């Protein structure tokens, strides 16, 4: 695979990877999209076990937890529980290390973009077990396919069902509803329309009807289905179309909603806002939305429309790297994977990057709200967050900067995109490590 240009790597990836010579030129849509077809052996070293291989461990873990065997380092616990703990620690590490070593930065960026657009947070015990599978099995396989398929996968994934409390929803006229007096939980129905798809153009009545259609959804080790005793009987009318109870009908609803112009527009807007500018140009959003509709919700068409627009080629970098993106870009630039131990100034056991992201305001897999991490720059620039970015640059600069050439590093990181003031500052630092810190903490390096 041809190496991306510097601008491609910065805007559509996680920045240049140490030791890899960047390609020439600005933005070549074909070259960026070729990343999505290419294998990525480095990233694949961070492939995580699928949920099918975890259910058994999760069950044992739950038993051990109930029996109080997980306290004090889980020494008394079943080896399989300890195995799960280890797997989940590696899951969190993979959030940082996978993009840090990846050759195809665009694919990793897309996975994180979509996982944020259709958010699940690992809040609580059950979700901690499910989050990695959500990313790997509901999001990742679909980033080059049709949004319709991703929406089906995310809506049905047990992590989403738990996160947006669909598992508690009971049709009021279902067997269980009548017997126990239970009722609907509109959470998932509402967020599906509000956050995952249309964003506008539907009514409260549509939400309620959708909640009635979704009642009884279930997905666990036995697979996706609609449970008869919780399903709300009768037809539902959503956005003017009628649906009967059942799994196929839910999928038909997803297809209809995915093809709505409101969904096209909201999706295009979010993607343009993520990659191009906090306030993306109107014609960019309109072009992307049209390409999405013209190609039956195909995401590659959406990406191509974005990549060929003139704003994608702009040398002005309007977006800000999130704390996660900044840490990953710093690791790529300094040739680290995130697993190194014994680095100067860090704890003996390693860089503790999971704790670090928490300090920087972006705890791993834990966005505070169902609309995900903020996608606008100013949300990441509160005074404490700015301090935490500088702290990170100081620690990493001290660890790797002793023998570094900060000027060459700035060239490699930014090429001719570096501002003259940055070049002077990096060259003018008293010590090599401080030069690296000045580079890593600079607004130039934080922009993409």
């Amino acid at each position: 695979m041809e190496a991306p240009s510097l601008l491609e790597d910065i805007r559509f990836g996680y920045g240049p990877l140490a030791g890899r010579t960047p390609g020439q030129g600005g933005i070549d849509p074909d070259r960026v999209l070729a990343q999505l077809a290419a294998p990525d052996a480095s990233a694949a070293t961070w492939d995580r076990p699928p949920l099918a291989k975890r259910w058994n461990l999760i069950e044992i873990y739950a038993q051990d937890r109930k029996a109080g065997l997980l306290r004090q380092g889980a020494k008394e616990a079943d080896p399989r529980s300890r195995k799960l703990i280890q797997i989940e620690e590696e899951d969190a590490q993979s959030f940082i290390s996978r993009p840090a070593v990846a050759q195809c930065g665009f694919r990793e960026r897309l996975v994180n973009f979509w996982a944020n657009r259709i958010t699940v947070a690992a809040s609580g015990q059950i979700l901690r077990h499910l989050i990695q599978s959500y990313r790997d099995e509901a999001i990742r396989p679909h980033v080059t396919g049709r949004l319709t398929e991703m929406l089906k996968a995310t809506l049905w994934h047990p992590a989403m069902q738990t996160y947006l409390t669909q598992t508690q929803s009971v049709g009021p006229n279902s067997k269980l509803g009548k017997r126990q007096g239970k009722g609907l939980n509109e959470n998932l129905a509402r967020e599906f329309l509000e956050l995952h798809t249309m964003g506008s153009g539907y009514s409260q009545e549509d939400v309620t009807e959708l909640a009635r259609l979704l009642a009884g959804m279930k997905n666990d080790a036995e697979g996706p289905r609609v449970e008869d005793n919780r399903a709300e009987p009768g037809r539902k009318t959503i956005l003017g179309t009628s649906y009967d109870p059942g799994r196929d009908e839910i999928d038909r609803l997803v297809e209809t909603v995915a093809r709505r112009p409101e969904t096209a527009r909201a999706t295009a807007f979010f993607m343009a806002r993520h990659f191009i500018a906090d306030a993306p140009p109107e014609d960019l959003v309109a072009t992307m939305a049209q390409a999405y509709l013209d190609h039956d919700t195909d995401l590659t068409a959406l990406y191509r429309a974005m990549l060929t627009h003139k704003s994608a080629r702009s040398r002005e970098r309007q977006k800000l790297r999130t704390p996660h993106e900044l840490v990953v870009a710093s690791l790529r630039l300094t040739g680290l994977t995130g697993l190194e131990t014994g680095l100067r100034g860090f704890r003996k056991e390693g860089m503790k990057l999971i704790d670090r992201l928490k300090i920087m305001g972006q705890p791993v897999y834990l966005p505070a709200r169902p609309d995900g991490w903020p996608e606008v720059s100013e949300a990441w620039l509160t005074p404490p967050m700015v301090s935490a970015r500088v702290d990170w640059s100081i620690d990493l600069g001290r660890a790797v900067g002793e023998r570094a050439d900060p000027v060459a590093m700035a060239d490699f990181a930014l090429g001719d995109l570096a501002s003259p003031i940055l070049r002077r500052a990096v060259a003018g630092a008293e010590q090599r490590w401080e030069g690296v810190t000045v580079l890593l903490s600079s607004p130039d390096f934080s922009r993409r």
Partner: protein
Amino acid sequence: MTDLLLSRRAFLIGCSVAASPLVTPVSFASASGENRLVVIVLRGAMDGLDVVRPVGDTAFAGLRPTLSANPGPALNDFFTLHPAAESLMPLWKSGELGFAHAVATPYRQGRSHFIGQDALENGTDQTDGTMTSAHDGWLNRAIGLMKDATPETGVSVGQQRLLVLEGDAPSDHWFPVEESQLSGQGAELIAALNAADPLFAEPFAEAQRLADTSDGMTGGVPRGKMQYAQLGTYVAQRLMGPSRIASFSLGGWDMHRDQVRSMAGQLKGLSDAILAMKEGLGRAWGTTLVIGITEFGRTARENGTGGTDHGTGGLAVLAGGALKGGHVYGKWPGLGESDLFENRDLLPTADVRAFPAWALRSMFGLEAAGLEATVFPGLDLGSDPGFLL
């Protein structure tokens, strides 16, 4: 942003405050006095029936056989306090601790944490939790009504901003950072680069000012999870500076199972935070009110897994020297079968928003009209519950 600092300094060296062009005229709604308000957002739906237990209600023990097993200190002849909060009993006895029971936000449809917390922080009166159109926080709107408020009047403590303080009125945001190991020259280079970038200039300058004025608070602070007592200390330190309104959140109240164990840890933490604020504020504690509010209460009955599920009527925690404490405020609805809301939850008998509203009225002089229209739309302030000295 520096108005208050400068004016205080001017005052200290003997200048006339009134003559300073930096001091805005005193208005009725005032953020510049000695009164301080702390709003703790207790995320996850705190079980009010477990924290302040209505043991005098004949139905209570039957509803909660497991959870009522370990008795705590008596508050009066009807309520007892959870044993893990025993360290707060001296405050109760000195009138610096109180509660409002059977209170709730207007949100009634769904018992969703997300919607419930948004409703709690936004201050909406919509029963389905729909936020007011600006999607901002009630504390922010309240600060917006204080004519002499500065961007430092309100501060959220912790890593992320809190919705309750978000909105048009600028507010501060703070959490401890470590001391820098940079040389002076390195620090200057970084400052120059940040100052040259329109996005970074302002927050960087503010971060620097915080680091410079933090009086050693940046040194020796352990990284990682902030301990509750430490959190209380930081809040107190901010309130001893120019801030008058602070907010932070404590998560972890969602106890669907094994509540005996988890509630003990949570209440210990909350008690530690309150006691640390009292200590840190010193004499200023006398004019401070702490309000702990939560998105909703929990089911009256304990569930099958030693916990409780999402409910409705809940509890507000009140503390501080400004409080007329030693009292459980509110009208008790009863726990009998027919008393419960939807046959499962404690029935709310008061709008929890009335408590912060009355606090804003008597501590910061906000007018009733502004409170009922802007800060808490649709709120009926009603008669003064008289919980403040």
